[in-house]
């Protein structure tokens, strides 16, 4: 199935990303910070949505793949670049190298996705959640114990390569690939696996393969997001890729509505903005100081009420073209 419209949206989004990148220096750095984090979270949430939403699996290890990507990309620019690039390489070459680093980050994450996914996706339901949960923990422990990668202190001095153009470019590409994949003839297999695995298998579909493909593609983009995040915060540390981070991404997917790409995008943006909006609110006047102090609590309360009011997801709508 062709999607000229979707491709047009991709082009528009890319153009907007480049425009934002160009305007970056003119914008408030705090504003840019939040916008960048939104883009990275969109990439993470939309890619997890492919696994948890569309393919109906339950992964709790997305931050682990993100961590692999972050460390791979950081190692590429910190350790590999001086050997590969000529001294005094210009901006264009550095940008190309960053692209290579991001691809390597995605590749490494996808590879680990394959290694973890191939045996464990034969499991059904809750078991996968446990396996991915364990995987996420193992990744954090491994990074914590590799001294050349900084151990618990992590890596510092990563060059600032991520700008709004990179971040939104990656987000747009992720959305495009996931949407196009799910809406393709092949992608109907994900939905079939999600809707009724037994029925899909009795139709002769290899559901395990569909699950693995979803898992590997999702991990790839998580790795890319990790690479972007590392070159954005300029320091990475195993604590940033722990279980809590995985849960944050899962929450974005659930709040947005499992399998609803647009909903997940909006949820990722909203949940990134919310803590900062509360921060700003508390700064408005001394009488609102309590908002800042109870920020984690307010965030949780908002989350609970969202789920009570909109259990199907905040921005969920009826999925078109599926019978369920």
């Amino acid at each position, binding site marked *: *199935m062709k*999607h*000229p*419209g*979707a491709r*047009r*949206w991709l082009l528009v989004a890319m153009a907007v990303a480049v425009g934002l990148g160009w305007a970056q220096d003119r914008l*408030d*750095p*705090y*504003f840019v*910070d*939040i916008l960048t*984090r939104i883009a990275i979270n969109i990439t993470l949430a939309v890619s997890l949505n492919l696994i948890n939403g569309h393919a109906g699996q339950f992964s709790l290890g997305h931050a682990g793949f993100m961590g692999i990507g972050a460390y791979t990309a950081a190692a590429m620019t910190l350790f590999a670049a001086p050997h590969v690039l000529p001294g005094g390489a210009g901006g264009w070459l550095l940008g190309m190298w960053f692209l290579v680093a991001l691809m390597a980050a995605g590749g490494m994450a996808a590879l680990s996705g394959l290694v973890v996914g191939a045996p464990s996706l034969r499991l059904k339901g809750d078991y996968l959640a446990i396996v991915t949960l364990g995987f996420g923990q193992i990744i954090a*422990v491994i990074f*914590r*114990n590799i001294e050349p990668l900084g*151990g*618990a*202190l*992590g890596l*510092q*001095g990563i060059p*600032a390569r991520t700008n709004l153009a990179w971040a939104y470019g990656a987000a747009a590409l992720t*959305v495009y690939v996931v*949407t196009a994949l799910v*809406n393709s003839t092949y992608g109907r297999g994900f939905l079939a696996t999600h809707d009724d695995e037994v029925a899909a298998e009795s139709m002769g579909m290899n559901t395990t393969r569909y699950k693995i493909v979803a898992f590997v593609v999702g991990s790839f983009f998580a790795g890319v997001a990790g690479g972007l995040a590392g070159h954005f*915060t*300029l*320091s990475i*540390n*195993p*604590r*940033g890729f722990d279980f*809590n981070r995985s849960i944050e991404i899962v929450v974005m997917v659930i709040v947005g509505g499992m399998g609803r*790409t*647009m909903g997940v995008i*909006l949820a990722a*943006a*909203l949940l990134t*903005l919310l*803590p*900062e*909006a509360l*921060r*700003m*609110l508390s*700064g*408005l006047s001394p009488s609102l100081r309590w908002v*800042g*102090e109870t*920020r*984690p609590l307010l965030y949780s309360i908002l989350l609970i009420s969202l789920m009570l009011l909109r259990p199907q997801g905040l*921005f969920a*709508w009826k999925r*078109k*073209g599926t019978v369920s």
Partner: protein
Amino acid sequence: MSQSAPPAASIFRRHFRHFLLLTAVTVLGLVGCKPSDGSGAGSGTGAIKVGEFASLTGNEAAFGRSSHQGTVLAVEEINAAGGVLGRQLELITEDNQSKQDESATAVKKLISRDKVVAVLGEVASGRSLEAAPICQQYKIPQISPSSTNPKVTQMGDYIFRVCFIDPFQGTVMAKFAQSTLKAKKVAVLTDVGAPYSVGLATFFKERFVGDGGEIVAEQKFTNTDKDFKAQLTAIKSVAPDAVFVPAYYSQVTLIVLQARELGITVPFFGGDGWEAPELLQGSGSGEALEGCYFSTHFSPDQDSPRAKEFVKSYEAKYGAKPDAMAALGYDSALLLADAIRRAGVAEPTQIRDMLAQTKDFDGVSGMMTLDADRNARKSAVIIGIRDGKFVYKETVNP
């Protein structure tokens, strides 16, 4: 199945209301409060804005809050005495929930929105390291009250601290283990999840082995662990004279309680991460920790007029004795005010230059001189636990 409209486009059309909502939230959240119109910083006549980012909630909140209270007290006292250069100090505090990733955002907000002339923070080295490149990039001096990892100030020439660093603390504890505890065989239990712990353990081992001691066991755990029996059993089997646990208070209590259950009776000792009232609050933890020691920056029982005065005013305001974090939080604000006064103008670059020249600054946590690496050279204090209380043991000079 028939899908006439392209999905992205149709999704957008059908969810236009949500887009509007989201845009509204964005605009409200980000543009809602306009940044001050330039007059806040530098040479104006209004209040001098000082930023602070702190772990007010989350894992290290006990430290973050102590440090924050010390800073607030210092700013209040400075303002009550007429401020700096005839202007009041305005402290703007942001919480980072003790989370990785939030400090950079908070500091960017302080610098770009609030236009602060300097940033105070943080307790944990990991999060100071996250803010440091930002402060360096925007050339805003950052003073960390109590991040002891050496890497923090290596991030750039705008990054300072008012505490000693881990190599010094490791040395102090190695000397103390040999001379006071008379320990020859020591076991080390490290929190590999905390850079602070790993660094301190390394420096301790270097010095202790260098002075002829023996490390008989090296065990590891991570900051989410609650059960330490496996590590402690391994430590028990080698019968050390003492156990060095360079970890944070929340785990130290659990570790020592479980060690006593297993019948390990030798003293435990550690670094400034131990110091929080929470260390002794659990049931039975006072008895378990009896005869244990830790090194830190400040003791309220310390014999100096400056410290006594600080303890008095802190108790009057908060109804509790200050700990080391509070003293360092206090000193960080005091040092900044002093540097602004010496600079004669509230400009970040001049403040930085004056901070770098700090010599024999009389803080409540002791006399300090900032060396070429922007670290404070000052004395350490050793505190012991007697009858469920922190008791001042001795002061160790550099």
